[in-house]
């Protein structure tokens, strides 16, 4: 966590995500309003904001777990439309880690990891399991391969969930409050894995309130409120000189303790 990541590594050699004038409603409720966001390859973006501000909804639009109703979202140049084949192609390239892990409880850890490569990428089983073991070693729990998710701690489960996404070799990783459901002593082990991932140059969008993580890892911090992007800045600027009143209020509330 402590070693800062070279900010210059933000090579702008490709637009990975492009959101233009994205709007979304739940019934009459306008959850996302005029979202404009561009993410370059290798960029690491932290999204924060009060609960109900639409940050989860926004990243869930990127892999179409939520449908946007206006505007345009493109992932590596492919536009997200209602076309199912297209959506499945994009989901293969976009990994997602959830707040509640969402591991498959009826499968062992190894089966959780190998499932998508086998059934989506058509990787032969032996090869898929080899890939799975590699990633389990990367998240430092290869010895848990034969266990069921219910037998692991929260931190271990979340690391398995990260490894499960990585097995699909995604180009983008989305994190939806990955540490919010964890006991405090387990947060670090998950953040360490995420920092390593960032050092390897993964394009990451992360909804989190871990401000330490944001300071060390993020290229950009985005603050959302009431479905809009209120402020967007480099972490240094964002934390020391927030521009907007609502950002100041939010930061003072979460940094007070």
């Amino acid at each position, binding site marked *: 966590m402590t070693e800062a990541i070279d900010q210059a590594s933000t090579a702008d050699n490709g637009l990975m995500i492009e959101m233009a004038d994205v709007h979304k409603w739940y019934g009459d409720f306008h959850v996302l309003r005029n979202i404009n966001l561009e993410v370059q390859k290798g960029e690491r973006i932290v999204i924060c904001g009060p609960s109900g501000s639409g940050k989860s909804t926004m990243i869930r639009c990127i892999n179409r777990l939520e449908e946007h109703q206006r505007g345009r979202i493109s992932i590596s140049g492919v536009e997200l439309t209602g076309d199912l084949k297209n959506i499945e192609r994009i989901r293969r390239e*976009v990994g997602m880690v*959830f707040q509640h892990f969402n591991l*498959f*409880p*009826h499968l062992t850890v190894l089966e959780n990891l190998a499932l998508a490569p086998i059934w*989506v990428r058509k990787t032969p089983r032996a090869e898929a399991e080899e890939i799975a073991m590699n990633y389990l070693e990367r998240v430092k729990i290869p010895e848990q391969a034969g266990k069921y998710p219910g*037998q692991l701690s929260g931190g271990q489960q979340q690391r398995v969930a990260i490894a499960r996404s990585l097995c699909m070799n995604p180009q983008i990783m989305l994190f939806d409050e990955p540490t919010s459901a964890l006991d405090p002593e387990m947060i670090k082990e998950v953040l360490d894995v995420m920092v390593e991932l960032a050092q390897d140059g993964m394009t990451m969008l992360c909804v989190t309130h871990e401000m330490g993580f944001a300071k060390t890892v993020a290229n950009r911090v985005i603050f959302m409120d009431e479905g809009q992007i209120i402020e967007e800045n480099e972490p240094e600027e964002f934390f020391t000189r927030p521009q907007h009143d609502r950002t100041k209020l939010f930061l003072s509330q979460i940094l007070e303790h």
Partner: protein
Amino acid sequence: MTDLKNPSLAPPVTTVGIMGWMRQNLFSTPLNSGLTVLAVAFIYLLLVPFFQWAVWNADWTGSDQSACTSGGACWVFINARMELFIYGFFPTSEYWRVDLVFALLAVLIVPQFFERFPHKGWIGFFTLTGFPVLVYFLLVGGSFGLEPVESGKWGGLMLTLVLAFVGIVAALPIGILLALGRRSEMPVIRTICVCFIELWRGVPLISVLFMASVMLPLFLPDGVNFDKLLRALIGIVLFQSAYMAEVIRGGLQAIPKGQYEAARALGLGYWKSMSLIILPQALKLVIPGIVNTFIALFKDTTLVLIIGLLDILASVQSAIVDPAWGSVSTEGYLFAAFSFWIFCFSMSRYSQALERKLETGYQR
């Protein structure tokens, strides 16, 4: 740990062992003691005469009523009419076909009771798919040089098992499809499934069977006539699949939304997420409900007697009115009840074993 101030002592005699157990459970209060005495007296007055009748004073061997002299149960009757109870009116020369089916079924089911049996999955798959086809050719006949046996001659335990097996094997997949359809996001499919389920659940099975045997032929064009047994089977399958669908829907609803989302986020399409992620969990959750439906189905097969098919109960009924045997109705009905109980109880035990085996100790 060794220098405890209060070393552990043996518990008082009155709280452990058989004495302790009896004190706690049978004689804890005066009322409880009274109830215990009453219950013992009741069991004594009821069970002792029953066992005297059914076991000690019963007649077991012989060939006709003259062997039943001791005043107890006349099990000779069951022995003598066993062929009717098992094969119905199947031609005697063709009994081997039914026997072969029974033997195959037994051989195919045995591996399912072992933890690790080679190719267990494939054997199970064959039992549910290839085996029914084989049974069809064996029992119906008319091909491979086998003499055709029309379904009117089927009966007894064999008919009961055919109805139950086909009902179970067909109702489960149809029920799964209906349950998925009812939760579909496509309004047309959802409406069709809801209408189907509510229609079939809203009518009694008896009326379904009546319609299948009496009304359906009226609507079919002249010359088109298909087998009465087949019509009854289709009725039973569609009826039970509606129930099955609702049981499975309960399981689907219990799966957290996160599981669907995780499956989709990995790029799994609808059918893959359902078959690999959602259904294995949902079906496991509702094993008790599924087996409940199976057991109900097994026992409901006996309703085919109202359309003139003689299942095991009906064949027993037809045998007890035979004047050559005095009053043997008690023996007959006990035998029929016991036959049903054996199968239903086995299913129940199997489902419990299955639940224990599939328990992976997870919480979500």
